[in-house]
């Protein structure tokens, strides 16, 4: 396979250095410079990041291939600088068996753009009443290390505790969608004066905060690790901060949209702004940003949720929840966290790559650019304007009217170039390495 010499990139916005890639791993640039078969890429002016890792992606296959496939979602991911995504289990059928999670994993390898890590369901058919076969999924080819009923909350406390126990035996983590179902019946948007005046049903923050509070205590009681999906409120940040201070093994994520968008956008009743958990108030957005800055929130995860036009071409209450995120995540993090000074480029790499890989037990992301590590790499022009997302099959992009900064120009997945000058490398032209797990 091709070797690369990447010259002049600024590593995480700091020192400028050349980067060598050969046989899928980072090598000393001197080892590839001037060699036959080495492609040289001038990256001066660009910032080098480790390939991004998304812990929360909906790829919709099987069952929702009109909205996204594992191939199209992988392509959107590559365009966004990602080299690994965790595919949520709420497909049709649900990924609640080893056969199902292994199928997702194989489709990911066939697609070849990113490492597709299947997330296994916690309960059978996401039904919330009976545990799925966690050990079988963990022991399968895909080696599932993240389990989640995302889209639904594991609401039964007994079941949640047992799931935490079982996951912990496999070194895996439960990623909880924290939402008390009884407090959010028919909910459309953030609870409060705006929801009331729009006549929409409110989704109170306590429905999230109370589940997080319960779950951290459950995790503590069985000595297990817990990951909380998409924090959306200031109160949730406080609960997680309390749990961390107490020494509980909890990690937390926030989505790009909760770092930038507020409930005010719902005023026009455009369902592109309908998402679960809902967009909150400005105070929540600010608290979430502070949460990332202080480390209470460990990672940014997209909750990329493609939907067909028809599931959004209706009145707000009937519309599906969810928005695209893979191709805009990097730009939103620049705008919401880097520009205001909450994170530097190394911090961005931490929340979009190093930490999510750690939480998902994904190897090869520990030391960005280190010789011998798999060559997962994103090269970005952080001053250019962001391009228009075009990798996903769906178009429910909530950031259309925002002039966001930052453009991913090149992505390398385990040494294979997947994005070249901002465009996808065609599938037939991808390197021979089909992205086996490192």
């Amino acid at each position: 396979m091709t070797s690369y010499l990447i010259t002049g990139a600024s590593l995480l916005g700091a020192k400028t250095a050349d980067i060598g890639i050969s046989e899928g791993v980072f090598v000393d640039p001197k080892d590839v410079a001037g060699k036959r078969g080495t492609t040289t890429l001038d990256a001066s002016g660009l910032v080098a990041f480790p390939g991004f890792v998304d812990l929360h992606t909906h790829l919709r296959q099987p069952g929702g291939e009109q909205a996204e496939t594992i191939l199209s979602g992988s392509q959107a991911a590559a365009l966004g600088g990602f080299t690994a995504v965790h595919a949520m289990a709420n497909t049709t059928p649900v990924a609640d068996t080893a056969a199902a999670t292994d199928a997702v994993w194989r489709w990911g390898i066939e697609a070849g753009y990113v490492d597709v890590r299947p997330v296994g369901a916690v309960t059978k058919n996401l039904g919330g009443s009976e545990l799925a076969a966690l050990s079988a999924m963990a022991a399968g080819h895909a080696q599932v290390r993240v389990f989640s009923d995302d889209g639904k909350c594991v609401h039964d406390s007994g079941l949640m505790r047992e799931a935490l126990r079982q996951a912990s035996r496999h070194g895996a983590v439960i990623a909880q969608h924290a939402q008390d179902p009884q407090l959010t019946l028919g909910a459309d948007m953030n609870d409060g004066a705006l929801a009331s005046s729009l006549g929409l049903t409110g989704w109170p923050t306590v429905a999230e905060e109370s589940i997080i509070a319960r779950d951290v205590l459950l995790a503590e009681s069985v000595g297990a690790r817990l990951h909380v999906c998409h924090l959306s409120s200031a109160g949730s940040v406080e609960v997680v901060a309390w749990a961390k201070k107490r020494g509980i093994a909890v990690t937390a994520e926030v989505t790009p949209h909760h770092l930038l968008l507020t409930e005010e956008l719902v005023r026009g009743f455009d369902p592109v702004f309908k998402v679960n958990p809902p967009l909150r108030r400005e105070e929540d957005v600010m608290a979430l940003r502070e949460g990332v800055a202080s480390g209470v929130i460990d990672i940014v995860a997209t909750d990329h949720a493609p939907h067909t036009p028809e599931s959004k071409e209706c009145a707000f209450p009937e519309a599906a929840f969810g928005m695209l995120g893979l191709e805009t995540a990097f730009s939103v993090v620049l705008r919401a966290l880097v520009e205001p000074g909450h994170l530097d480029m190394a911090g961005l790499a931490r929340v979009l790559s190093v930490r999510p890989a750690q939480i998902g037990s994904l190897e090869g992301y520990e030391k960005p650019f280190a010789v011998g590590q798999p060559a997962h790499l994103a090269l970005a022009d952080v001053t250019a304007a962001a391009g228009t997302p075009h990798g996903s099959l769906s178009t429910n992009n909530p950031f259309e009217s925002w002039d966001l900064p930052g453009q991913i120009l090149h992505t390398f997945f385990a040494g294979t170039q997947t994005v070249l000058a901002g465009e996808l490398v065609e599938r037939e032209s991808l390197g021979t390495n089909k992205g086996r797990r490192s």
Partner: protein
Amino acid sequence: MKHLLGTQDLSKDDALRLLDTAYEFSAVAHRHVPKLPTLRGATMVNLFFEDSTRTRLSFEAAAKRLSADVMTFQAAGSSVSKGESLKDTAQTVEAMGADIIVMRHFSSGAAARLAHSGWIQAGVINAGDGTHEHPTQALLDAATLRDAVQDDPRGKDLAGLHVVIVGDIAHSRVARSNMWLLNTLGAKVTLVGPAELLPEGVADWPAEVMSDFDAALDSQPDAVMMLRMQNERQEGAPRVSLTHYVRDYSLSSARAARLSTHALVMHPGPMNRGVEIASSVADSAQSVILDQVRNGVSMRMAVLYELWGARS
């Protein structure tokens, strides 16, 4: 005005113009042939995704008095029950010639969605969307109030009036639309209902909020607007027992007797007699409930006239 979607964003000028136009049109009803040629050639479609005979008939009467053609689309038993989307339904009725679509929908924001989505060119009148707004109801209520307190109401607002709105505020689009419009027209609004039926964040609304109906009556309001109990709009079990509701929030004859003699009794209909309003009160001399219905027709004529004018 291309659409009428709600009263929250309706300016005072627009509201007064609509009220004045409606006042002029109200005279038409008394003519030997109660018809004007103004909307000849226009087609109004009633697009009703929720049952409402009276609002539909009122719009139909308004359109016919203006010589518009009327088509009616009832969602029940139609293509909608076969899964047709709002977009397809709206585009279909427009393709059949709709210039103005009057829509009643069970979902909040449906009318705004239709107006702003780019799916259709027709003007949209919100005839009630979920628990959001019902602007023509608020306008006709304002017209009724104005008629009652002014000899010549033209150009006049409702400054100085105090209106008490009683009932399930949380689930009432009529309460919302009335509150915004009355506020815009300078009236004072008091919302009264059991705490369980007051919406989250109601303190931020431009109204006084109370749970004690009797205390609200002590302030001698100029009008009391009773809302219909709407159990169908509540998620889960009803939050308030009917017995308690009737005891504390019904406009009984005893409560009505405490109203000042000039005070008006209003109800958007359909009434649950014996629940939110006693039969004797509904039929009393202070009741302007049928005036509201009459004003509904001329008010809707005014709105149709306004939207048609914006098109041509």
